[in-house]
């Protein structure tokens, strides 16, 4: 027994020393040309899980000249929101995914990560919020539709309300002023849903209402569920709203969690969550314009032509074709919300995009956990991101909320879904 303790101590020291490297300055991993350190991973991946706590009397922090209030609480996992033409807000609530645990790691990591999320059951419904008198209090709260399957993406055009469930794209007929759907939804097309490791189906619609765009995430971090599981995954589908006919619009997008059409140009933009377990500062999640027919690297490479050696078989031709994204948001921030601003938001927030960052797990020093604003000029990102809503983590390291979807209300407000506090926040101008 005597001889054993040095052996144990040595192996423990080896384990600890191997647990990931140091953080770099966050600002270096932002913008169009992020610094990409060498990939690294110790014996254990870095894990820092959000420890939930309640907001109490506290509110998120917003810039001077803005105010924030909770317009709905006690929801059942609010994810994305939609502002209807009459100002009513729809909230998609739920949690999806049915990925089998394939390795001992999946069992252990799944248990650890679940501690950083809400324990509320999936709502599988749409909730409607109404502020009839315009005083900022949403006094009406009704269930617009229920028995959906982990609804996430929402889009509206000319009396048609589109909802992307985790397994199908459906349409409701909507008459202005409705507080609940009058008929069951009509299915437009099934969506790839086997395994659904990344289950969220982001959704947006072309300005003419003809095409829907659905973001379909990969079925693994980096092909560890096998290449066969990645058919029809990690891409954006373009779907004909009339017929349901669909085709891949852009591929190699690991997890496109939110889509938005740029006003004016009609260009499709996406925020994409990149791969984990390559180190604290790899790989940056990103904001990018999405080119039709473009390939963005996953799984073979990241940020353009940086090869990911964890993938077999490799594909040099695909790597050579990979497009470098437009704008890095930082590694592990988990961008889940995206919307273009309007002049009504005021100040320095009139031209650009708001981005909801759910927050990291694969990083010693947590990042994300905020709503940020990427300023645009002449239609492209220009300049460093600006914090818009913060305060989701306490000074003693607990987490009060985690932002998901962000939606600009054209009347001059930002709607933020918080899936940890099960709250919808509304940020308005006070000046």
């Amino acid at each position, binding site marked *: 027994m005597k*001889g*054993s303790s040095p*052996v*144990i101590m040595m192996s423990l020291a*080896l384990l600890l020393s191997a647990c990931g490297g140091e953080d770099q300055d966050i600002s270096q991993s932002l913008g169009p040309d992020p610094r990409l350190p060498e990939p690294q991973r110790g014996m*254990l991946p870095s894990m820092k899980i959000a420890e939930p706590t309640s907001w109490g009397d506290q509110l998120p922090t917003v810039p001077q000249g803005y105010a924030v209030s909770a317009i709905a609480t006690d929801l059942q996992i609010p994810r994305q929101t939609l502002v209807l033409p009459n100002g009513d807000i729809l909230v998609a609530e739920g949690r999806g995914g049915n990925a089998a645990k394939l390795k*001992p790691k999946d069992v252990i990591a799944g248990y650890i990560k679940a501690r950083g999320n809400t324990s509320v059951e999936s709502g599988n419904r749409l909730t409607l919020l109404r502020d009839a008198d315009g005083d900022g209090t949403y006094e009406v709260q009704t269930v617009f539709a229920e028995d959906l399957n982990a609804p996430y993406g929402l889009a509206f055009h000319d009396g048609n309300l589109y909802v992307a469930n985790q397994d199908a794209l459906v349409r409701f007929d909507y008459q202005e002023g409705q507080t609940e759907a009058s008929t069951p939804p009509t299915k437009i097309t099934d969506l790839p849903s086997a395994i659904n490791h990344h289950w969220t189906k982001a959704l947006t619609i072309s300005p003419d209402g003809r095409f829907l765009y659905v973001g379909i995430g990969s079925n693994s971090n980096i092909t560890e569920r096998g*290449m066969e599981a990645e058919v029809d995954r990690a891409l954006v589908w373009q779907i004909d709203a009339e017929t349901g006919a669909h085709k891949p619009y852009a591929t190699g997008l690991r997890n496109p969690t939110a889509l938005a059409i740029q006003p004016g140009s009609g260009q499709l933009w996406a925020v994409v969550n990149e791969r984990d377990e390559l180190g604290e500062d790899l790989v940056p999640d990103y904001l990018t314009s999405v080119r039709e027919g473009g390939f963005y690297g996953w799984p073979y490479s990241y940020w353009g032509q940086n090869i990911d050696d*964890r993938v077999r078989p490799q594909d040099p031709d695909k790597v050579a074709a990979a497009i470098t994204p437009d704008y890095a948001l930082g590694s592990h921030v988990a961008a889940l919300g995206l919307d273009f601003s309007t002049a009504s938001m005021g100040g320095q927030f009139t031209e650009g995009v708001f981005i909801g960052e759910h927050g990291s797990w694969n990083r010693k020093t947590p990042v994300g956990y905020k709503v940020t604003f990427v300023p645009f000029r002449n239609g492209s990102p220009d300049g460093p991101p600006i914090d818009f809503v913060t305060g989701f983590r306490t000074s003693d390291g607990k987490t009060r909320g985690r932002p998901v979807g962000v939606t600009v209300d054209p009347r001059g407000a930002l709607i933020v879904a918080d899936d940890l506090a099960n709250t919808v926040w509304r940020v308005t101008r006070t000046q």
Partner: protein
Amino acid sequence: MTAITHRSYRSRPGPLHAILLAGTVPLFLGALLSDIAYYRSYQIQWSNFASWLIAGGLVFCGLALLFALANLLRAKRKVGRPLLYYMLLLATWVLGFINALEHAKDAWAIMPASLVLSFIVTVLACVTAWVGLTNLRSGGAA
């Protein structure tokens, strides 16, 4: 005669101890073969099999380690074969654990380290089981 029987009983694995000890061999060997299959085919299921076989090997090896420790603590002279057996078993478990962590990496990230580790652990498990199961014949060094 009675005393000798008593002494050798302590140093020899009992049936449960022997099952646990011998069981580590096919489990770690199975992991090695699965790793080889993954290395040659890129079929991820082999890597999943290897991970679970190693987890099973660690359970068997860990329980055998408890028996070995108890035997060692009860032995009068903590040297010779019982100590060698215990140290080998401990090394097998520690390297097996490191191998389990290595196998928790995603996809090809486990290569080639997992293949090398699985080979070493399999050889160690064979040697350890051999030493442990032949303790009986060593004539009660402890």
